[in-house]
Structure formats: C-alpha cells, structure tokens
C-alpha cells in the first residue's frame, strides 16, 4: 500500500498524531455525529406509537407522495438533459462551448430563494407569462408545476457534470468503430456509449434524486406551502416544527435522514465499484 509507508513520518511523538486525530474527530462529532444522535434519541424518546402516529398522519403522507411525484418527474427530465448535454459538450467543438459549461453550472451557485424568485417573476400573476397562464387557467406558482420547475432547476447540473468527464476520458474511438461497422446513432449510443458511462449516470441520478427530494428554499418560495396540498416533505418538516409539533418534525426528519444515509451508502458502493470519485462543487 502506498499510504502505509508515508504515514506517521512527520510527527515526532504519537502524542501529536493523537492530538490531531482527537481535534478532527471532536469537530466532526460536534458538527455531525452529536446532532444526528440527538435526532435518533428524540425519535426513540417519542416511542413507537408516536412514530407510527406521525408517519400515518394524512399531511405527512401527502407530503411524501408529493416529494416522490416531484422527483419522478424532475429526475428523469434532468437525466435526459444531462446525457444530451454531456454528449454535446464532450463530443463537439463549437463556439460558445465554454460558456455553455458555465451556464450549466449556474444552478449550483444561485441561492435557492433567488431561483424561486425567478420562477415567480416568470410564472407569477404579475410575471411575464402570468396573464397568458391565467387566460388558459393553468397555475404554475402555488401548485405542482411550480414545485417541479423549482426542483428541476436546482438539481439540473448533476448528471451532465458526472457524465461529461467520463465521456471525455473514454474518447470516441469505440463509437467510431461501431459506426464504421454500420451501427445507427441510437445503436451506438445504447450498446457502446451507455455501458461505458453507466456508473457515471447512476452516480448523477443518485445525486439529482437526493437534491430533488431534499430541496427546500426554491420550493418554499413557489409552493405556497399549503398543508396536505403543495407541501413537500422538507416543507412539512419546517411547518410542523414551527408549530411545536416536534415529535412529528423529528419523525419526518428521520425519514429524510434515512434517505440521505441510503444515498451515501449507494454512493460509496458506486465509488468502490467504478473507482470513480466526483469533485466537490457548490451544491
């Protein structure tokens, strides 16, 4: 192992090493582990009946369903978009290519509330399309389409960003070989390209889904936060918490925390499987 011979060489005493480990772990404990343990303790303290009661609550179930429904629309849309974009950027050179790469990253760097504001200015009653939407009696803001648009916006770049570097790395010789042998564009894509980038796609879909199901700010602005109607799971958590229904808030929180945990475990497995690790970015 490469790491084995380099460890422990630059700290004289083991005291220094253990001191550094202690400080690092204390920081992580205060910031991450203690808060999560507190969440678990609160849920356990509430007992099974409280948990079951909270999880069968009508507003909670509606919020779950809305969150799943939103992800079911937003994640496939962003996956198709991400694949198209990654392919265009990795396989073509055209003017404005660098600009396109920057543009795609934009949703990561805009505050979610500003994203919500943009959608209100576009689809709201006083917005650009407000009059038109009212005329055809189609509501975007304070209803499901707005929630989906907001969610799709904030989770847009993941698949594109994960797949692009892989496509660039594998090059196009295999695809060209397939074409020479008479494969059509779609055949080449399904039988040659997709098998090469499948881990990247999965990784991107996983991150897209985690972000889509957990989004708060952007959805909060456009949803109107009507309990049981336009309330996603994160909004439900805030709502019940502010109304001092803490047991419900903790129960719903543990559901989303479990989702986060599953996401991390699958991500770890994917990384081990593919030996591929993504770079940190803003969101």
């Amino acid at each position, binding site marked *: 192992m490469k790491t084995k011979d*380099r*460890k422990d*060489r*630059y*700290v*004289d005493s083991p005291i220094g090493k253990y001191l*550094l*480990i202690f400080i*690092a772990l204390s920081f*992580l404990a*205060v*910031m991450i582990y*203690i*808060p*999560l343990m*507190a*969440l678990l303790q609160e849920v356990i303290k509430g007992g099974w009946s409280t948990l079951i009661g909270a999880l069968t609550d009508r507003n909670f179930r509606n919020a779950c369903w809305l969150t799943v429904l939103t992800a079911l629309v937003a994640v496939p849309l962003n996956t198709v*978009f991400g694949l*198209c*974009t990654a392919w*265009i950027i990795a396989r073509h050179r055209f003017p*404005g290519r660098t600009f396109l790469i*920057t*543009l795609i*990253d934009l949703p990561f*760097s*805009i*505050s*979610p*509330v*500003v994203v*919500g*504001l*943009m959608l*209100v*200015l576009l689809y709201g009653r006083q917005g*650009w399309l407000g009059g038109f939407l009212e005329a055809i009696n189609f509501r975007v803001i304070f209803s499901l389409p707005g929630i989906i648009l907001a969610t*799709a916006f904030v989770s*847009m770049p993941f698949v594109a960003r994960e797949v692009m570097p892989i496509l660039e790395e594998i090059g196009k010789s295999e695809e060209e070989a397939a074409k020479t042998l008479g494969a059509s*564009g779609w055949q080449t894509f399904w039988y040659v390209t997709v098998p090469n980038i499948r881990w990247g796609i999965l990784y991107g879909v996983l991150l897209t889904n*985690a972000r889509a199901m*957990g*989004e*708060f700010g952007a959805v909060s602005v456009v949803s109107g936060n009507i309990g049981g109607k336009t309330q996603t799971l*994160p909004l439900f*958590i*805030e709502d019940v918490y502010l109304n001092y229904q*803490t047991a419900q808030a*903790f129960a719903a*929180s543990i559901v*989303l925390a479990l*989702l*986060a945990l599953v996401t*991390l475990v699958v991500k770890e497995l994917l990384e081990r499987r593919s030996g591929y*690790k993504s*770079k*940190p*970015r*803003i*969101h």
Partner: protein
Amino acid sequence: MNLYRTAFNSNLRLPLSVPGVFMTVYLIVMLVLPLAALLVKGFSLPPDRFWQIATSKLALATYGINFSLAFLAALTNGVMGTLVAWVLVRYDFPGKKIIDASVDIPFALPTAVAGVVLTAIYSDSGWIGRLFAAQGIRIAFARPGVYLAMTFISLPFVIRTLQPVLNDMEKEVEEVAWSLGASPTVTFWRVIFPPLIPHILTGVALAFSRAVGEFGSVVIIASNLPFEDMIASVLIFQKLEQYDIQGATVIGVVMLTISLLLLFMINLLQKWGSHNED
C-alpha cells in the same frame, strides 16, 4: 493538417440533432427564461430606485450579517477542514473509512433536516445549547446559530478539495526536506503547506459561496429578526410574502451578481491550483 481539419469539420458546429435540440429547448425554458425574467425586471427599475432599495439600511445590515457569518463559517471550515483532511489522508485509525464517508453527510442531508436537528441541540433546552444558556449565551435563534448552520452545510468542501491533493503530493520533496535536517514542523510549514494554499482557498471560496446562499437550515435555526440574524435569502423571502416584488427583485439581483462574482473567483482559484501542479 488540412486532412485533420476536414475529418473533424463536422464536429465544429453545434449539431442539429435530437440531443442538441432537446438540450437547447430545455436550457432556454428551465434556465435562461427564469434568469432573464429576474434580470429584465431588475434592470427595468429606475437606477436610483434600484440603488435606494439595494442600499437601504435593512438591506445593508442584512448583507453585513450574511457575509460576515458566511465568512466566519468558511474560515472555520478552512482551518478545521484542512486538519480533518490531513488526519484522514496521513493517519490510520479504527473506523477511518466510515468517518471519511460521514464527511458527506452535510451534502446528503436535506437542509430543513439540518436546521431542525441543529436547533434541537443548540436551543436553550438542547444537549449543547443548555450548557451555553447557563452562561447566558444564546446559540439557536441568534447569530451563533446561523453561523453553526452555515458551517454545517459547507463542511465537506475544504476536506473534499484537499484530500486528493494531499494524496497525490510527491513525497520525495518532503523526504528531501526531511533528510536535509528540517524538523517535521518546518517541513510542514515550508514544504507541504505552501502548495496547498490555492486548494485551501478554493475550498474556502466554495464553502463561502454555499454558506452565503444557504436558506433552509438558517431560516429554521434563526429568529429571522431584521438587524439581528436575518440573512439576505430570508429578506427576499419575506419581501415576497409581503408582495413587495420590486424589493425582492432588487435584493435578488444583488445576490445573483455576488454569486456570479464568487463563481468567477472560484474558477480563477482552481486555475491557480492546477497551474501550480504543472
């Protein structure tokens, strides 16, 4: 050369293919139109009116609180993140793999959950908040709570930026310094640390950028009182709730401009970092 050119000529233009059309339409509908709606609305206001809202007393106080707390959070992560990355790369200890994986929790955990959980332990009756409350220090529903939430959600950036760099570092350089008689401390500060600086700054800038725009966890842990612990995102949200679309738009344009500047700065820092490696 000419042959090469003709062979690849077909790739020089944006192709009019199904993926190309889908990407363009999707980008315009989902991203460009909303962005344009904000910018056009913002710049259709008379400049003096825009300036008046953007620099009102409340707005200035809000930026001040927002940026100073985000800066403190990014700074904390700069120092502690460097330390954690060092420990995770250089030392072996039991449970290291799980601890390494757990660093991503703040990215994976929805921000509303982070807000609720942090409020629960840092409020006056919470596990840790209780200890501070006894000394008369409020954490949740005050600025320290906002700082904590910002630190939490931006925690992985510095660590995840530094880990690959520390891993790839050529040990020969360190060994030379070491064998020339430099002490471990001198080796660290003179040899190891300087090339890390651009990467630490990149991580800090990423953390800052994320902390500045954070909403979910902050709105839950803060009291959201003006001049106390209200941040810009909350101000925009409240203005929208009061149907002050104009006010919300102005603050929104200001925050968008700042995020774009930060994005530009991060790109420069990343270039600096990769330039050093060559």
